[in-house]
Each structure stands twice: as structure tokens, then as C-alpha cells.
């Protein structure tokens, strides 16, 4: 299948804290790759480096053979990398439909003049708008968001908002999608649905997924490979079964057993 993204020796510090230290990994195209680790391990920082929000101090990010290390966020999006955010960054005073339509931004062309002056259904701006609305409707169907379609995002429950954010990322038609704790705040049923959605994203839409998650059941069930971090250091990488038994991972999550004499 080939490698879609390769991270080489990524290092970044904030003040005196080294958030990431020489982290390297590569993700195979068409797989679900998970990043786990206790709070503050640097999982979200990796996402922020990939999407250009933080410039790394050193190291390289190579996407499909091209270095994108110092790209700006919108340039990264243009390359086909979409993401969601840990603390939901939706456009709260727009409807679900408009949020998803913004995901189509890069695929549309209408500028100020055409946008302000279209007058009938057949004009270029209107036709473009209609075509992309049809496309967004497919995503709404895919995530079963019909009920939220015309509602303002502020009025939606937390779990639905997470789905809208996922939908917005999908609307970009990315090749690689970065999901930051997509199941946070969801109940069991919603989590199960989400799990199937993520698998469908990989299998039906052919999008590679990098997942940051705290729910171990979900991670172990759907990941193809897992990377474990602690204090910005890579402590293990491998198949889910390997990670589950890895002594360093157990130590990071459960702490060390003190020997009692």
C-alpha cells in the first residue's frame, strides 16, 4: 500500500517543557493508526505540528514524499489533510449544513464578485453551490446527521457536535484525517456508531485515519497499529496485541508496582 505520512525525529519545546522529543513514526496508506498516552504525553501536539499550527523545533514531516514541515495550516489542508479538534472548534453560529459547506471551501471557486452578483439558478455561483450542497448531503447521510441539518451548532448536544466536526473534516475529501478524541463525551451507543463510522471511513472512503483516543476498547478494536507516548517520548509502537502487553505502556498507565519487602 505504501506510506502516506512519515514523521522523522519530531521535537518541539514550549518554554522549558519538551512536549515532543525525537518522535518518529510512519503511517501506512489505508490504515487506522492510533496514538495513545496519558494526559500531556504530546498526542495533540503531534497533530498541531502536522497541521502547521505549531512549527516544530526540529524534525521533518513528509507527506506523500513531499516535505510539509513548515507549511501553513491552509496549505496543509490543500494537500488533503483534514483534522478535528479535542475541544470542538466548530463554527457555532452557523448551521450544520454551513459548517460542512465550509469543509468544501477548497473545492469551490466562487469569489466576491460572483458570490455577490449571481441572479438565477443557472449562474455559475449558484450551480457550484448546488453541486456542493448535494455532496455535503451525502456526508450528512453517511453520519446520519439529518436531524441536525438546519440547526445551529450551538444548540446541538455534545456528541452530535463531535460528529458534525467529523463531517466537516470529511467534506474536505481528505486522503488523511486526524481525529482528536472523537469519542469524548459520547455515550456507549454513540461510541459504537462512531467506531463503525471510522471503519467505514477507512474501508469505503479509502481515507487513512490517525486517531488520538482515550477509550482503550475502541482503540484496541479498530486500530491497525498503535503508537504509545509518554512525556513526549515514544515508548512503544506496534500491533494492538503487542501494545497491550508492552511493559513500558503498562508502566505509563498503571504506574510501577512497589516492591514490598
Amino acid at each position: 500500500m505504501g506510506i502516506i505520512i512519515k514523521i522523522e525525529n519530531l521535537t518541539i519545546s514550549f518554554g522549558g517543557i519538551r512536549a515532543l522529543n525525537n518522535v518518529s513514526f510512519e503511517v501506512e496508506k489505508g490504515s487506522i493508526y492510533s496514538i495513545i498516552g496519558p494526559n500531556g504525553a504530546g498526542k495533540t501536539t503531534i497533530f498541531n505540528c502536522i497541521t502547521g499550527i505549531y512549527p516544530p523545533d526540529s524534525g521533518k514531516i513528509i507527506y506523500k514524499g513531499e516535505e510539509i514541515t513548515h507549511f501553513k495550516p491552509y496549505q496543509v489542508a490543500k494537500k488533503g489533510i483534514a483534522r478535528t479538534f479535542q475541544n470542538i472548534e466548530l463554527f457555532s453560529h452557523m448551521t450544520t449544513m454551513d459548517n460542512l459547506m465550509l469543509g468544501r471551501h477548497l473545492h469551490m471557486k466562487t469569489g466576491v464578485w460572483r458570490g455577490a452578483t449571481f441572479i438565477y439558478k443557472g449562474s455559475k455561483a449558484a450551480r457550484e453551490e448546488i453541486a456542493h450542497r448535494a455532496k455535503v448531503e451525502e456526508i450528512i447521510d453517511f453520519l446520519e446527521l439529518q436531524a441536525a441539518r438546519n440547526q445551529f451548532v450551538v444548540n446541538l448536544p455534545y456528541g452530535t457536535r463531535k460528529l458534525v466536526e467529523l463531517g466537516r473534516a470529511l467534506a474536505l475529501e481528505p486522503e488523511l484525517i486526524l481525529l482528536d478524541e472523537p469519542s469524548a463525551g459520547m455515550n456507549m451507543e454513540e461510541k459504537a456508531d462512531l467506531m463503525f463510522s471510522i471503519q467505514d471511513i477507512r474501508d469505503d472512503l479509502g481515507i487513512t485515519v490517525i486517531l488520538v483516543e482515550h477509550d482503550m476498547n475502541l482503540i484496541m478494536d479498530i486500530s491497525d497499529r498503535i503508537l504509545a507516548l509518554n512525556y513526549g517520548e515514544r515508548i512503544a509502537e506496534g500491533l494492538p496485541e503487542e501494545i497491550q502487553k508492552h511493559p513500558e505502556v503498562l508502566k505509563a498507565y498503571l504506574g510501577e508496582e512497589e516492591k514490598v519487602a
Partner: protein
Amino acid sequence: MDMKRDYYEDIELFKSTTILICSILFLIFLAVLPWLIEKYHPLGMSIYIVNLITVHALVAIGLNILVGYTGQISMGHAGFFAIGAFTTVIFVLNWSFPLWIALPIAGFVSSGFGFILGLPALRLKGPYLAIATLGFGMTITTIIKHMEFFGGRMGLQAPKLHLFGAPMKDIHYYYMIMVIAVLMVIGATKLIKTRVGRAFIAIRDSDIAAEAMGVNLTYYKTLAFAVSAFYTGIGGGLYAFILGFINPESFHLIMSITFLAMVVVGGLGSIMGSIAGAALMTYLDIKLQAIQDIPVIGAALLNFSQKYMSVGGISNIAVIVYGLIMILIVLFEPLGIFGFWIRTKKYWKTWPF
């Protein structure tokens, strides 16, 4: 009722037959308005006041695109207003361009300045941006005031325009301004509904997410400034002609703040709100100057002002009442006049319940 069969209906200007009929009725109303005013003088209105309101509405829409939709603040819009006014007058006066060419030129000159002012806006937010734009507004007025080319302190006399050989009157300006305004209102409404408008709103709600979705922040923030300045510049050009003369002293800081007040009172993020805000503020500004004419309380207010403030007191009271109305609106309806409208609409939609 709310059933849709077509994606086009989402972006259509007239979402239903009712709205279409109301819009046509409104246009007819606008067409006969001068006649109504001449005949009945409702609320002491004159065509001049309506013209002023319309021009201010254009500015308020422009400012709302920037403040209400894109979430960037500007306290320097009097600067753009001045640029529009002086550019139009100079093109018509010195180089005898016809108004219909001079006006778009003024719009683009103003939006060029908007673009330049937009550049520092990329790094500044909130109060910092407010101060930077404030500086811009003050600089522009000062430059104009001290250049002989712009008429210096005395300002410029706008040339009298002629229509079929006869000099244009308020009523002719009314129709000219109204046609331009209606087109520009429709343009703004459509702009907000399509790709560029969505990018603006996205920047307001979450700039990080907007950028991660591929919106080029640099481009769209400066674009918002440019579009906003374009509307304001056109407004300025028209203002010069309804007033007859322009004087750099009149484009002061208070004017910028009044524009901002129109937007806030009307409702942030609403085109119709901007128009309502501009109408209310302009009307009050003019009518409160004659506050002593209000029955019963007018005389009492005048008396109060003369006794406790100053002998010429009436302008004090006007400013205080003006301020009070602003405070009350913002306090009781943070969404401004637009908020009242939404509530009324909801009330009627769900009426018996």
C-alpha cells in the same frame, strides 16, 4: 411550510412567495416614499433625512461585514468614508468624470486602503485592532485637512449635478441613492450566503478551525477589510453629494463610533439589522437636536439643562438621551433591533401557543 425540494432554495434571495411579495411591496413603497413624505411629512421626515439614512445604511452594512460577520473591529471607518467622499468629489470636480464612474473608483480606492489596513489586522485582535484602526481614521482626516489638494480646512464644495440640463434635487438624489443601495444590499446578502461569506463567518467563530479547513486567513481577513471599505467608500461618495460640501472636520472619531453604534444597535451579523440601526441612529441624531419640541417633557428637559448644565443646554440633553437609548437597547436586547425582529417572528409563528 419549511419543506425544501431543491438545494437552490437554501441560497435563494426570495425563500418563499410571501417574501417575494413583501419585497416587491417594499420596493413599491420605496418608489412612492418621496411622494408620501412631501405630502404628509410623517414623523417630521424629509427626503434629505431618508437619503442620509440610506447612505449610513450602506456604511453600516460594510462595517457589519467586518465586525459582525468576520469578527474584526474597526474604529476608523470615518477614514474610509472620508476617502470615498473626497475621491468622488475630486474626480468629478477636478477631472470632470461623470459620477457613475467616479463613484466606483472611490469604492475601489477606499477598498485599496482597506486592504492596506487589513494587513496589520492579521496580527492584532480585539482592543489592539481597535486602537490601530482608530489611528488610521485619525491619520486620514489629518492628512486630508493639511493638504491643499483636498481643500484644506475649508473642505470641498461638491459640484452640482445636472439631470437633463436641470440641476438635481434631493428627490433625484433619492432615486439614484436608492437604486445603488438596493443593489448593494442584495449583493451583501448574497455574498454572505456563498463561499466568501461563509469563510468570513468561519473566521469569526473559530479562526483556527477555519484555517485547518483551508481558509487562507491572510487573504480573507484583508478581503473583509477591503469589502467593508468598498461599501463605506461608496457611502462616502454619495454623502458628499447629498450634503453638497465636505469638510475634513466632519469625519471625526465620533463618526466612526456612531457607525459602530449603528451596527451594534441594529444587530451584529445581520444585514437588515444594519439598515434598521442606521435608520434609528440617524433619525435620532437629527431629531434629538430639536428635543424641546417634544410635548410636555421637552420643556422640562430644556429647563433642567439650562439650570444645571449650560445655558445653551439643549445639545447636552440630546447627547444624553441618545446615549441612554443606546444603553437601553444593548442592555435589553443584545442582538439589537434584529433581535426584536427575530422574537416577533417567533411569536407569530407559534402564535396561539
